[in-house]
C-alpha cells in the first residue's frame, strides 16, 4: 500500500457493519477501491481525531452514533471546523434512516452522497468508487 492510495474513514459504531464494509471493499473488483486504506472510528469523537491527524478522501458516515448524530460531523466538515488545513473529504451518509426527511437533512448537512442500508456489496463499491474518482 503506497502513500498514493486513497484513504477512507468509516464512521460506524457497529462492529458487524465495519467488518462488512471492510470485507466488501477488500474484495472489490475496482483496484482503487480495493487498494484504499480503510480507517475506522466507532464514535464521532474518534472520527474527529482521525480527521485532524491525516488526510482522508472519503468519509462513510453512519447516523446513529453513541455520541451524537453523524450529520453533525458532516456539518463540521462542511464548515471546516474539523480537519482544518487538510484535504476536504467527500462525505457519504450510510444509514438505515431512509425517509425523505432523513435524506433532506443529510443534504442540508453537506453530505455528498448517501447509501441506504441495507445495501448490496456492489452498491457500496460503486458509491465508494464514484467518490474516490472525484478526488
Amino acid at each position, binding site marked *: 500500500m503506497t502513500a498514493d492510495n486513497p484513504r477512507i474513514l468509516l464512521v460506524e459504531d457497529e462492529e*458487524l*457493519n465495519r467488518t462488512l464494509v471492510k470485507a466488501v471493499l477488500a474484495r472489490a473488483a475496482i483496484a482503487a477501491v480495493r487498494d484504499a486504506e480503510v480507517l475506522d472510528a466507532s464514535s464521532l469523537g474518534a472520527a474527529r481525531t482521525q480527521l485532524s491527524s491525516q488526510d482522508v478522501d472519503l468519509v462513510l458516515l453512519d447516523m446513529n452514533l453513541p455520541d451524537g448524530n453523524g450529520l453533525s460531523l458532516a456539518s463540521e466538515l462542511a464548515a471546516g471546523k474539523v480537519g482544518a488545513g487538510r484535504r476536504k473529504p467527500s462525505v457519504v451518509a450510510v444509514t438505515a434512516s431512509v425517509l425523505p426527511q432523513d435524506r433532506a437533512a443529510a443534504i442540508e448537512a453537506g453530505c455528498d452522497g448517501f447509501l441506504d*442500508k*441495507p445495501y448490496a456489496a456492489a452498491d*457500496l463499491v460503486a458509491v465508494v468508487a464514484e467518490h474516490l474518482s472525484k478526488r
Partner: protein
Amino acid sequence: MRVGLSYLVPIAAECMFAALFLRAGLGYLRRRDPLQRDVTLIFLPCTLWFAVILLQPLDIVPPLWVTSITLAVLFAQSYLTVRLAARLRAVPRWMNWAALAVFVGTAAPIVAVSGAVVYWRWTLASAGFVLIEVAAAWLLFGKARTRTGANRARLTAAAATTLLFAAMISLLGATAIIQKEDQFLAPYRALGLICSIGYLIAFAPPRWLRRAFSATTAQSVSERMLRAQVDSAEEVWQTYADIMRVQTGADAVAVLMPRSDGLLAPIAYAGPSIRTPEELGFDDLTQLIRAGQPARLREGGDALVEHYGDDLGDDFVTLLSMPVPPDAEGAVLLFNRHRSLFSDDDLRLFALLGGQAGILAERMSVVTAQRRLANELSSSVEALTRASQAKSAFLANMSHELRTPLNAIIGFSDLMRQEEPDGDRRLVPADWVEHIHTSGRHLLGLINDILDLAKVEAGRLELRLAPLRIDTAVQELLTGLSPLLITKSLTVVTELSPATASADRVRFRQIVENLLSNAIKFTPEGGQLTVSTVRDGENVIVTVADDGVGIAAEDQERVFEEFQQVGDPDRQRAGTGLGLALTKRLVEAHGGEISLRSELGYGSAFSVRLPGAVVVQSLTSTSSGEGARVLLVEDDPQSAELLQTQLEHAGYQVDVAGTGEAGLTAAGARPPDAIVLDVALPGIDGFEVIRRLKADRRLADIPVFFATIIDERQAGLALGARDYFVKPVDQAALLGALARSVAARPAAPRVLVVDHDDTIRQAIEDGLRAGGADVVAVADGHDGLAMSRESQFDLIVCDMQSPAVDGFSMLAAMEQEPSTRRTPVLGLASTAGEASLVATAMAGGIVADAMAGGAGSEKLAPLLGVRGAEDVDEKESP
C-alpha cells in the same frame, strides 16, 4: 278664631302620624311581631303630641295630667327609636341603658313639675332628647350603609327623619323657653309635617315610591348578575345567592331548585358555614312558599329545621317561590335572626330576578357544555395528531430497526455469492455465516415483538388465563437462563415465596424473560440480580432487581416507550427497543401494572403486579403417582431434574431420556405408564417422537404429555398428545393430568397360564410379567378351570399337548360357561399340525393362536405388547 290655613299643616302631620301608628299597631296585633310593636311605640308619641297641638287653636285645654303624659311619651320617642335600631342591628347593651337613663333624667323634671315652666328644665329635656335621637340616627345610618337599594333609601330616610325630629323638639324647647310661640310656630309645624312625611317614606312608602326603589334595585341586581365572572350554572346561582344576601340583609340565603325526583334541593347557599346541604330534598315547603310571609324556622318543617336550623339557629325563615322560565319553580330561603323591617317589599322582585338568574344559569350550562365539547374536540384532535405522529415515528423507527440487521444479512450473503465456487459449493468465512445467522435471529425477534405489540394494540392478544405458580415459573426461567448468568458471572439471589397468579403462562414467561434478560444485559460482570415473588393481598408481585447502571429519573418514563433505548448509547444495539414496551402492554393486558424504581449507578428494580388467582387444590393428591412409571424425554439437565423431582415427589417412578431416540428405545424396552416429552430435542424432535410412538401399536396407547417452551399446542394435540404444557409448566396441572391418565389406563391384562412344565410355566410367567401383565399360573387343567371361573382373565395361555393338563377338556368346559366363552386362548403345541387341528376343532373361535412347542421366553416376545382382549380379538379376525 285662630284656625287658619296654617292649621292644615299640623292636621296633615297628625293624619300621617296617626295612619303610621294605626298601621303598625294593627300589624303588631295581627302578627305579635315585637318589631311592629316598637314601630307602633315610636309613632304613639307623635300621634298624641300632634293631637294635643290640634286642640290648642280650638281653645280646648286638656287637663294637666294629659299634657304631662303626652310630654313624657313624646320625650320617650328618642329612647324608643334606639330600641328599634337595636332590633335591626347589634347595639351594645350599655347604650340601651344609657339612653333610658338620659331620658328618665332629663324628661322627669318637666313631667313632674308640669306647668311650672322653667327654662332650664326645658333646656335639659331638649338636650337629652337630641342627644339620644342623634345616637339613634347614627345607628340607623350605620345600618343603612350595610344595605343597598330600596332598603338603604328607607333606612336613610328613617335616620334623617330622626334627626329632623330632634330639630323639631329643639324648636319646641326653644318656644317654651323664650315664651314666643308665634315666631317658632310655623317652622315647628312645618318640621312636624316634614317628619311625618319622612317617616311615611321610611316605614310605609307609597306604591309609586316603592316602584321607583324597586326599579333601581332591579337594575343594580341585574347589572351585578350580568357583570359577575361566572363560568358555570352553579356559579350563577351562587352569585345570585350572594347578591340576595347583601340585598335583603339576611343572615343566610339558600336557593333551591327542583331535582329530577320533584323534590327541592339546595343548589346554592350564602351565609355562615353549615353542614353540607347538598344531599337534601324538601317536599313539605309548599305551605311556607304559599304563605309568602316570614315564618319561624321552628315551624318550617322538620327537614328544614334539621338541616338549617341547628347550624344557623336563625329564628325566621322566609320562603319565596322562584319561577324559573320556562316551567320550573324553585325557591329562595332567607334566614334572619330578626325580622327584617325594610326588606319585605323587594322580596317578590328578588324572586323574579331569581328567574332571570335561572335563565342565565341555563344559558351558562349550555355555554359550559359547548365549551367542554369544544375542549374535548380539540383535545381529541390533539390526541389524534399525536397518535398519528407517534405512528409515523414508529414506522420510521421500525424501518430503521429492520434495515439494520438486514444490512448484515444482505451484505454478508452478497459477499458469499462472490466467493469462488467449488462445484456447487462456496468456501466462505465461518464468521460471515455466524453474522448472518445472528442478524437473522435479531430480525426475527424484532418481527415477533412488533407482531405482539400490534396484537396488543389491536386488542387481539388472546390470553389463556389460568392459575400459575409464579415462584416455580420464575425458578424454571432462571434455570433456563443459567448459561447466560454463568457467562457473565452474575449471582442471583432469589426470594421466591409461593404465589399464584392468574396469567397466561406463555406471556408470563415472555414478561419475566424480558425483565431478566434486560437485567442480565445491564449488569456488569460479577454483579448481582435479586429476583423475588410475593403475594400482596389479591395480587402477586414479581420483582427483578439488578445492581447495574441504573436509569436516570428523567428516562424512567421513556423506557416503556417503543424504540426508546436510554442510558449508555454504546449498548444501543443490545435489544430491539421493544422489549419493555411489549412487557408493559402484556402486563397491562393481564390487568396488572409494571413499575420501575431506579437510581443512576445503583441499579434498577422492575416490579410486575399481576392479579392473583385462587389456588384450587388439585383433587388428586401428590401421592397420586402410586408407583406408576413416567418416562421423561428432556435434553436440558436442569429442566429434567426439576420435572423429575416434581414427579418423584408425587410418587412416580421417573426414567429420563436425553434424546428422542433414547426415549423411543426406553419406551419400547419397557413401556411406561405415561411419557412427558419436550419438543426441542437433539436429533429427532418431540413431534417426531410422538409420531413414532403413535405409529407403534404397542406404544400408541401410552398417554403423552408435552412440556416445552414451544407454544404449539394445536400441533401437539393433533399428533395425539393427551395434553400440552408450555414451560414454565404448571406443576399442579401436569400432575393432575398425569394422575387422571394413569388412573384411566386399562388395568394390567390378567393372564392365566396353564402348563405342567415348571420351567416353561416360569418362563412364560416372567415374560408376561415383564410385559406388564398380571399373571396367574397353574399346573393343570382342573385348577385352570377353577381359576377361570373364579375371576375374569383377558387371556389364557394353555399347553394343548400335555395329558396332565388336558387343555382340550378344559377349553370345552370353558366354552360352556357364558362368562368364559369369549376369553381368547393361546394354545401351545409342539407341532404346527396339531395346533391347526386344535384351531379347527375349536372352530367356535376361542383358540386365538397356536405356537410351536418348546416355547421359551424369547418366543413370547409378541405377548409383551398384549394390552388387553381387544388386541387379541383383532388377531382373531384376519
